[in-house]
């Protein structure tokens, strides 16, 4: 079995804090893999080690057979691994439309293109693509609004759209529904399911909302204090006593 993403023996310490301790994780092609765990477990740190934001102290991260450690963030993006952040990272001063046009430009033009004499208004292919993805997210009515004027939930959805327009082969989502209204959360779940049907995109989702996790995940890994304490199907995880103790026990009565 070959994996799209293979994390082997990754360690990361911050000062004395062992944020990741010998983490091993394999993501299969086409699956939706949820990572759950209490606050401060190291979930975001793990994603940071995959996309070049942090360099692990030891261990390896292999994506599509290629070593990712030491690669620049923009090259990792072009390799097909795209990250959506925990606190929305959008372009607050640009219009909502431009926010999705830019990732589309990156996909089309590569890491650097010098085209100061091309007209933005002539980029019809990208414009149409951007409008269609905004329609999927029901953001098209506000396409020319400044992104900073959006609600937090909509910013998240916008960032998700920015990730999706690049058609990544692996999408890393860090709490994509946090701060969203229930209605938008359900909407997002539907969108992610639809995306899987259409493109078969592989996803890693960090999520605290168990409703989201159990609606989407094919497999779940549980991270606690830097250790993966369990990996398995949703049913395995639900019934794992260690997991109950470390995590589910507290959040089930929410």
């Amino acid at each position: 079995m070959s994996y799209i993403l293979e994390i082997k023996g990754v360690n990361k310490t911050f000062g004395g804090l062992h944020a990741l301790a010998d983490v091993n994780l394999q993501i299969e092609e086409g699956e939706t893999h949820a990572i759950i765990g209490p606050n401060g477990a190291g979930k975001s740190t793990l994603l940071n080690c995959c996309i070049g934001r942090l360099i692990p102290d030891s261990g390896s991260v292999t994506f599509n057979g290629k070593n990712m450690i030491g690669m620049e963030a923009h090259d990792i993006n072009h390799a097909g691994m795209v990250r959506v952040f925990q606190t929305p990272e959008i372009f607050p001063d640009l219009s909502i439309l431009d926010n999705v046009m830019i990732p589309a430009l990156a996909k089309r033009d590569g890491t650097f293109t010098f085209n100061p004499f091309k007209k933005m208004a002539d980029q019809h292919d990208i414009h149409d693509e951007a409008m269609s993805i905004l329609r999927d997210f029901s953001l098209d009515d506000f396409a020319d609004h400044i992104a900073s004027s959006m609600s937090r939930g909509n910013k998240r959805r916008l960032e998700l759209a920015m990730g999706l327009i690049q058609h990544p082969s692996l999408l890393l989502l860090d709490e994509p529904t946090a701060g969203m209204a229930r209605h938008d959360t359900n909407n997002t779940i539907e969108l992610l399911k639809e995306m899987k049907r259409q493109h078969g995109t592989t996803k890693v989702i960090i999520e605290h909302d168990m409703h989201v996790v159990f609606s989407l995940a094919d497999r779940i890994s549980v991270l606690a204090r830097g250790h993966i304490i369990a990996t398995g199907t949703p049913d395995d995880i639900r019934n794992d006593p260690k997991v109950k103790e470390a995590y589910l026990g507290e959040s089930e009565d929410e």
Partner: protein
Amino acid sequence: MKISIKSNLIIMLIFITIVLSAPIWGKVIGAAYPDLLQKFAIFALFAIGFNILFGLTGYLSFGHATFLGVGSYTAVWMFKLFSMNVLPAIILGTLMSGVFAYIIGYLSLRRSGIYFSILTLAFAQMAYSLAYSVLTPITNGETGLQLSQQDPRYLDALFGVAVSDGLPSTNFFGLSMSGYSGFYFCAVILIIGFYVSLKIFRSPYGLKLTAIKSNQKRMKYTGFNTRPYLLSAFMISGMYAGLAGSLMAVTDPLAGAERMQWTASGEVVLMTILGGAGTLIGPILGAVIIKYFENIFSALNTAELHSIFSFMPKFMENIFVFITNPFVGDGWHLMLGVLFMLVVIFLPGGVLEGLGKVTNLFKRILGFKSTKQGASKGESS
């Protein structure tokens, strides 16, 4: 002010009309001297270029006068060595400052924010002292680089152009660059420079530069290598400065180190912010406003102040002269400082934002709907 005129052609036609009619509207504001109008055009060009770096990417350079100086020195050397024709001078002046911008940009862009600004300032101070003392054989130090009748001018000599008496004067294929023809030459270059900036603003490249300003981290994780974007923007704005510097030499063929002083670097920052950073027209407006007021206020002296306030009773006159005196003549920079402070505190978007507010107010009074806020910002002009 959010006038989003979609058509580049219409914008250019309006712009060309305004620039070429400067000698006419200049009369109204008492600025219709070729010397002053030239200054407007040259500094507008400098500010347009500066705005491509600062306005689009948000990187604040405090050392752009370096490129102004490089442009001037190169142009004067071209006059001395090759020809009094201005074309080779401005071309080489622009290219040479591009080379300098590449080197300084390459090193300074290793940092961002305040550290970037400090690095550019440090390089500019180094360039200044190099020009002032170390490189005296090239720059003629304190005196400044000047033309002389004995200069070789190989190209001119080849074509048998001889200078009979006095210093040679600059020309554009025979058209002398003094008086209004000098202004029109600068005006045409300004129009070209504005057109290029308009194209950049509305290109995918320009959009990516604004995106870097908005969220550089996001740009990186979106798959853009931001370094070459920043470096190319730095070079473009350095080349605009070099072009402006060589035009200074065209209209007045000498170059001195004071052109590279930090005050000159600061001035273009003021122009851009005063007019409205990141807008198409703002920096031009800022440049014209500053040069216009400089022209008026730096020329005033105590005696003239007395005559201005002479309509008042004598003791009032004396008080007013006493208060205003520090702000005129050599004290004009004090005035500039106050002006700048007021704009930054009350109109952070610059004069253009102020004009926008005033137009909206009038529209409301006249019963129009105020222009839609929150619309696309990149297109504002």
